[in-house]
């Protein structure tokens, strides 16, 4: 498992956890058919938290964060994001999705649009931003992820790491208050993982609320304020990183850590 070392100094001045509750999940269960994929999930995420969710494959981590922006539907329990409860009411779903940004494992950039158009699509059609303003915002975020010169190229012409950074910028253009990351570096070649992790660290340094599903434990140790371990669809253990890595309490956690950190 890749475990890129983070060897930069982290500026923690803005990484404040406030008391405001960003996400609240109560008693949430989800089934795929008869398969009970998420079992009795209880979770409270406060604004400014940087949470890393780890666990073996099939443990339901991706499904959990996909439930937060309603890419998956939960069957029982409550999910409240930024004060809005997620139900089948379309207006609520729209509201939540414009506050929550998501970065996918396979980037999912729109190949028929330029980088700039990828970033301005949602602001223009969802927030009804005028085109020039949307482009200005997009260039601002493309500069932030350090690829402004690629604005007029197409995704097929970029490397994997560049594409993922564009994906991050694209989500940021909607000015979300919460960012979800679903294994953002798993599909990247090793030499490109660092550039994407650097971008995520800068995002964290600015105080963004982040939920990151990843195997990059170096990132967790450097930036996260909470690590959650999931197995078999339930939260098994959570703690702040130093305690989590040095002093795992559950047997399953210990087994998992030995597998991914052992090599």
């Amino acid at each position, binding site marked *: 498992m890749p475990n890129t070392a983070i060897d930069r100094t982290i500026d923690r001045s803005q990484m404040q*956890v406030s008391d405001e509750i960003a996400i609240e999940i*109560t008693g949430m*269960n989800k*089934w795929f*058919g*008869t*398969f*009970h994929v998420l*079992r*009795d999930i*209880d*979770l*409270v*995420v*406060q604004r400014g*938290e940087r949470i890393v969710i780890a666990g073996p494959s099939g443990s339901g981590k991706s499904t959990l964060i996909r439930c937060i922006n309603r890419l998956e539907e939960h*069957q*029982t329990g409550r999910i409240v994001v930024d004060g809005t409860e997620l139900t089948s009411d379309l207006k609520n779903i729209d509201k939540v999705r414009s506050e929550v940004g998501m970065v996918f494992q396979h980037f999912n950039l729109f190949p028929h649009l330029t980088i700039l158009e990828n970033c301005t699509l949602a602001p223009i059609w969802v927030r009804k931003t005028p085109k020039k303003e949307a482009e200005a915002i997009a260039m601002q975020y493309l500069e932030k992820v350090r690829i402004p010169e690629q604005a007029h190229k197409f995704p097929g012409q970029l490397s994997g790491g560049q594409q993922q950074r564009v994906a991050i910028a694209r989500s940021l253009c909607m000015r979300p208050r919460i960012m979800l990351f679903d294994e953002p570096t798993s599909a990247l070649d090793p030499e490109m993982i660092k550039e994407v992790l650097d971008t995520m660290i800068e995002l964290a340094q600015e105080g963004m609320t982040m939920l990151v599903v990843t195997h990059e434990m170096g990132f967790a140790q450097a930036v996260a*304020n*909470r690590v*959650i371990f999931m*197995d*078999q*669809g*339930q*939260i*098994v*253990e*959570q*703690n*702040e990183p130093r*305690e989590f890595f040095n002093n795992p*309490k*559950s047997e399953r956690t210990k087994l998992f850590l030995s597998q991914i950190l052992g090599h």
Partner: protein
Amino acid sequence: MNTRPGAGQPYVRDQMLAEKAPPILAAGPLKWARENLFAGPVNSALTVIGVLVVLWGVQAAYPWLRHSVWTASSLGECRAIIAASWGEGASGACWAIINERWTQFIYGFYPSHLYWRPVLALGLLFFALAPLLFGETVRIRMAVLGVVTLLLVAALVQLGTGSGLSDLALLAALLAALWVMWKTPSRMLWFAVLYPFLAFWLMWGGSIWLPLVALAGLGVGWLALRATLGFGGLVAIVAAIVAPLIWWLFVAGPVFAWLDASLPVAIEAVRSDKFGGFVLSLTIGISGIAMSLPLGILLALGRRSDMFLVKTLSVGFIEFIRGVPLIALLFTASLLLNYFLPPGTNFDIILRVVIMVTLFAAAYIAEVVRGGLAALPRGQFEAADALGMDYWQAQRLIVLPQALKISIPGIVSTFIGLFKDTTLVVFVGLLDPLKGITDAVRASPDWKGVYWEPYLFVGAIFFIFNFSMSRYSMYLERKLKTDHS
């Protein structure tokens, strides 16, 4: 339930939760109904319309099918029976026509005491194709061939070959073939080479020396190849093509005449104009596809070639064939081929049609193989070059086997299309099962005016055949995807 995990609160679960059953609406038949039939206003409306369409179809077709008459000797008699059984004005299906004339649809006017020959030829086709199409596991191959053998034996017993001795001989030969296929499947590739000549002899009959002399041409070609291998790939290929040509054009005729005169061995001959029905369709279709494969591969290679002239000629040929309707090519076969060949040559209409169908199929196969070659990673070509192989060696040993394997689904699709197109031969006077035989049947006063039953019968056979082939090709495609990725 433990305290809720909040920020900064360490938490450990002490008891893993077991799986629970989903709530009633979340799974099971109600959920299925909710998601698949009534998933929203539009979908619900569509479901209702769908149900109405199904009901309408059933109420239109069911009475006609229920009032079916299977035994009658004419359409008039059929109608009388239907009126008597189900009242005046009732409509019903007169399947009696199929009952009486089904052999015509299948065999055309082939002599009925010789039906076992085309049946045997079709059964042996499976043996010839087995290494290619069912090559995945021995068990699948043997299962398929076992079923084929059983069916063949049953059919031959039904039809009778004319003497009990030949029945037994055939049975023994089949069992021997099965045994060879099981033990040393690679030997059966020889049978694939022999099969075309054997099938030709079975279908058309005549002296055994004709197919044997033609087969000898292949032997001549192989010998020429071996003899000239030392001079390089290109010379060898040219020799392998030229030598059999010389044999077939100049030597074969006299040799055949001499052999036939001194040692006549023959089975009853069947003239081409007796061929009809599905026997005709299958003959044209299968020979067309089989012969179009080598030509199609050459065209595909030519199209990818760097040599301007070769590429232009290949592209020109392919685009010409794909640009004209098959009917035009069939008319060329029947009207024009005589102009293009030396004065005095006049040969079988079926052979002429097969030639045009072969050229037609070759253009489409060329495109399929071109796709297969393009799907091959560049690394394969480069590896072959790095190993020091010349062009033809690389093609023969590395490139083509893989490209052809990828192309098999496309080749099966082309065959399905070709098989459907064999119904067009009616327009050059041949008796295809669809219009040719049906018109012949409708010409007799007994069955004048019938149309649903024969068309449905022939259509159903085409459907079963083509649908099975397309399912098989999709299965192959799925297998190939998992093999490669």
